[in-house]
């Protein structure tokens, strides 16, 4: 077989494979496992965040090969679907720590309310000051809530659901990568406080990072993420109502 014919065979194979769900699923799992292994080999430094590098590698692959996002997603949706059961699964760490939570619920609820409101309000305020359009602001508002829930809230607020999901993932990455440095500067030492703050401001990706560092930090991050989901779904859709009361 001549090199040109082999090349043509390869191109045909690629065209076939990249259109099947097999491609998106295999590429996502494969890239993530490689990123995870490299991160572990390096001793889990914050900059080697597996989600960041997996997303960058897959985005580069899609752009370089000209594969449209929908055909990638036709396979990746099987992983995406598990976000729903994962949100349900957050009930498990909550239930395991029910005794602690019964004692500390008021402080945790107040911190979650204050932190969630501060994150959302400052995102919208900074975006507004920088002159971002309204639909981008509405997509920024739920950015501290885990991606599937952020999409629903953004839609209610008149934002772009797909953009809201991407902004939520980027927010998670910012928190997971810079959280440790911020807590050191602020002299926050308690693992539960660090974990809870990570989960409040940067949801599941922050919680995954917290879990890498300490089991207690991970549990409080999971709790914070669950609380944000409940609080944000209840409170953020009220924002347009609030705005309509203003003169």
């Amino acid at each position, binding site marked *: 077989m001549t090199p040109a014919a082999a090349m043509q065979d390869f191109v045909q194979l690629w065209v076939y494979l990249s259109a099947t769900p097999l491609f998106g699923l295999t590429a996502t799992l494969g890239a993530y496992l490689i990123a995870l292994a490299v991160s572990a080999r390096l001793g889990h430094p914050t900059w080697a965040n597996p989600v960041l590098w997996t997303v960058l590698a897959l985005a580069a692959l899609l752009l370089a090969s000209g594969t449209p996002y929908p055909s990638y997603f036709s396979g990746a949706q099987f992983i995406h679907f598990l976000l729903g*059961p994962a949100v349900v699964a957050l009930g498990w760490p909550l239930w395991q720590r029910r005794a602690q939570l019964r004692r500390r619920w008021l402080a945790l609820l107040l*911190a979650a309310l204050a932190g969630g409101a501060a994150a959302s309000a400052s995102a919208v305020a900074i975006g507004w000051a920088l002159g971002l359009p309204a639909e981008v602001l509405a997509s920024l508002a739920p950015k501290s809530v885990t991606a599937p829930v952020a999409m629903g809230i953004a839609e209610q607020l008149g934002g772009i659901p797909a953009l809201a999901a991407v902004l939520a993932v980027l927010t998670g990455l910012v928190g997971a990568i810079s959280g440790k440095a911020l807590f050191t500067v602020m002299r926050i030492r308690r693992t539960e406080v660090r974990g809870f703050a990570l989960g409040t401001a940067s949801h599941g990706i922050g919680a995954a990072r917290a879990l890498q560092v300490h089991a207690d930090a991970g549990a409080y991050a999971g709790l914070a993420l669950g609380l944000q989901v409940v609080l944000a779904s209840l409170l953020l859709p009220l924002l347009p109502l609030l705005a309509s009361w203003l003169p």
Partner: protein
Amino acid sequence: MTALHGLAILLLCQSAGEAASRLLHLPLPGPVLGMLLLVVALRWQALRTPVGMAADALLGHLSLLFVPVGVGVVTHLALIARDGPRMGLALLLSTWVGMGVTALVLQALWRDEPP
């Protein structure tokens, strides 16, 4: 009872939550109601082992589940070229504000509590 049973229980809770959210027009999304349902259901001892196995498996790789949505960044390249730096600045600062406020409030409220 295995992790597969646990996954089935999680899916059942999610389905019940989804149904309740739509039928009763509740403001909470289905998976969130499912989470609250799960906490109640866990009073039943027989559910604990399988749910624990499934939940630990899912939550142990929680960050993987965000990859498909994250790759969606390729569909917003025009928007990012136009508004990227401003969106990035808003994201960065507001995430620090959110983390900082949460940590300070919690630390202040727990001042008297032993770690």
